[in-house]
């Protein structure tokens, strides 16, 4: 308020004001605004320092470390040797393939299930709305260790939870999904979808609630059925949420670690290896810090490239319009 009163009717812009006013009057006002700018800039310093200390410095350290060869005997030499080693390492490409499968399967499935559940809850429940929201969101806040143990037991043939149910029907679960290199990654993807669909649902809940009720009323008056309501009203209007989920999904995919580490450790024979488990194995367990750092940098570059690609292709509108308008207001 104080600032606005100072600016007076000439608040159309400091440049215009400076040009119109005599130099002797403009200087103190400009200096005052400079001081205000400096003071305001001070508020950014804590965040900037935290960013420099906890983000920029580690990234720089890792990037420099990735250029130094490991000291272990037999480690490749040369500035970019760790990167060349990664491209020649079959495990790196297994992780790349698994990450691609992870993204291609989990992101759309989670979106579809999450969106559908959100729509059903928000449009077709009233008293039980909070209950269903909580139930579907529960896996998201469940400890990943618990999720890993329970799903490992469910998948276990012979003694697992699913087997216990099948036994009642006289059936035996003969497939060991986590033990078979051909199925293990898909078994893990199912667990991931189960755990994170609730997150997509909550995002869509916010998106659907941001759609004005009169749009639904108009659609109904126009005779829109459920299918039309979903495809022509809800899907276009929650597009910003979908874009956000896509962006978060890709980043989340590249960050995948705990569920794979706890359930399979990347095995059997690297069949479920993801970038996280391979970086941990190389950098921490095997002590190849340089190679682990190079893998981390590659994942960072990939993550940045994919994020920029999405923002360029889909636009940066990542929040529902009403939410943005409310934030601006």
């Amino acid at each position, binding site marked *: 308020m104080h600032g606005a009163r100072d600016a007076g009717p000439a608040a159309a812009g400091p440049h215009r004001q400076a040009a119109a006013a005599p130099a002797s009057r403009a200087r103190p006002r400009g200096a005052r605004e400079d001081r205000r700018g400096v003071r305001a800039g001070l508020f950014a310093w804590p965040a900037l320092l935290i960013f420099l200390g906890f983000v920029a410095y580690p990234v720089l350290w890792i990037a420099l470390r990735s250029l130094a060869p490991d000291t272990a*005997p037999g480690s490749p030499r040369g500035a970019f040797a760790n990167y060349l080693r990664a491209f020649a390492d079959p495990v790196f490409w297994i992780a790349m393939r698994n990450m691609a499968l992870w993204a291609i399967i989990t992101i759309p499935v989670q979106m579809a299930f999450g969106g559908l559940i959100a729509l059903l809850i928000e449009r077709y429940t009233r008293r039980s709305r909070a209950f269903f929201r909580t139930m579907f969101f529960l896996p998201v806040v469940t400890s990943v260790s618990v999720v890993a143990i329970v799903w490992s037991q469910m998948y276990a*043939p012979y003694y697992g939870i699913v087997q216990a149910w099948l036994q009642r029907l006289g059936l035996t679960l003969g497939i060991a999904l986590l033990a*078979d290199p051909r199925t293990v990654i898909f078994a893990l993807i199912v667990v991931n979808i189960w755990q994170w669909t609730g997150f997509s649902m909550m995002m869509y809940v916010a998106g659907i609630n941001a759609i004005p009720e009169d749009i639904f009323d108009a659609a109904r008056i126009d005779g829109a059925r459920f299918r039309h309501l979903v495809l022509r009203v809800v899907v276009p209007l929650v597009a910003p949420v979908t874009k956000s989920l896509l962006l978060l999904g890709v980043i989340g995919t590249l960050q995948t670690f705990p569920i794979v580490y706890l359930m399979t450790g990347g095995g059997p024979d690297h069949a479920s290896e993801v970038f996280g488990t391979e970086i941990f194995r190389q950098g921490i367990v095997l002590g190849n810090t340089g190679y682990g750092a190079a893998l981390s940098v590659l994942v960072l570059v990939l993550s940045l490239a994919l994020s920029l690609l999405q923002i360029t292709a889909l636009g940066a509108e990542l929040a529902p319009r009403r939410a943005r308008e409310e934030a601006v207001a």
Partner: protein
Amino acid sequence: MKRQRWLASLLAGIVLLATGAAWAQSGQTVTVWSWFIASTMQKSIQAFEAKHPGVTVKYTYYNYAPEYLTALKAAAASGSLPDLIGLQPGSLTQQYRANLEPLDAYAKREWGADWASKIFPVDRRQMHMGNPAGDDSTYMLPEESQVLCIWYNKDLFAKFGLTPPTTYDALVKTAKTLASHGIMPMFQGAADGWQNENVYLMLADQRAPGLIDQAQAGKAPWTSPALVQAMQDWAGLFKDGVFQQGALGAHAYPTGAQLFAQGRVGMMALGSWWMQEAKYPPPLPPLVQNMQGFDFFMFPALAAGGHASPPVGGIDIGYGMTKAGAKNPAAWTFLASLVQGDGLQAALNDLNDLPSIAGPKPEGDISPNILAMYDRFMTALPHAENQRFGNPEIADALDNALAGVAAGKLEPEAALKQVQAVTDRVLGKS
């Protein structure tokens, strides 16, 4: 004025707090990090502190992986390692060798010039495993040792008229009998590399004792007929139904151990550490109480007319003293207590695990059944073959080879060729 008074009070508060903190730290404090079971470590610390009233031990427990390994890595990089760190012989010790103090002079002062000769041969070899040529220093001292074996459920064996198998054929028959009654025959947590290594070591050391040690040192090829044969034996354990279905996706802990303790598993390849189940806080499953439901045997003879596997084992856990710990006299005092003093005795009383020297025995509330098992393990330990790998990349390559063969993706010889390639690389031969 008001503001000045407020600032003065704040400063006075800070000074008081700092003084209090300094006073609290006036006694000696030893910091220790490890993955060693916290309840047992607390008993060792209590026993130590009772004898050394001026010293406080601050113990930080971590899960071995990923927490402990990550914490060590970060602390080593930032120069903030504690005084003592838990170590496994070989690769883990070697990774932190530059941060560790050689312990020979301390040990000589504490236990005399012949201190090393009192430690069991397998432990002694493992203490120096992976040291660069010409470096005979000791960077870690063993607190406890272990011997690998096959544990079995005595009640189930008695129920189905089974006896501990002495031949491979008898083992397969035993497994089939157990499976036919809905019992998991031998639980293998084959998703964990360590349990696969242990079983393969038992097989390989039966085929040719000590050959794996030579192979990892580059003195014998991994494709030696005996090691290829052992790899075929390994594949046979899956094909012949000795291991439970889906073993490759299973974990030994917590799943396998829980099922074994509940009586749903017939056999399991573990080691002397399994005795400690009897000391966990109640309620304990009846089988585990005083280990009354369990006994063990060495892996049965693979070839007709052959012998069971020799004992395989070595250091269960050891400790190293960091450069920071070397500046703290109390650090060595506690380390010595853990290795051969009150700290060790308290751990043994908790049945965790076997000592690295002859003499100490568990005391207190220990059943004769357990003491008899303990004596059998202690008889085997001096003759044990080495269980550890000096280089983590070789161990990792073997883990992958074992998983590949078990999954049917690799033939035994091809799998061992991959291990050979990694061995050649890390030994600088290729």
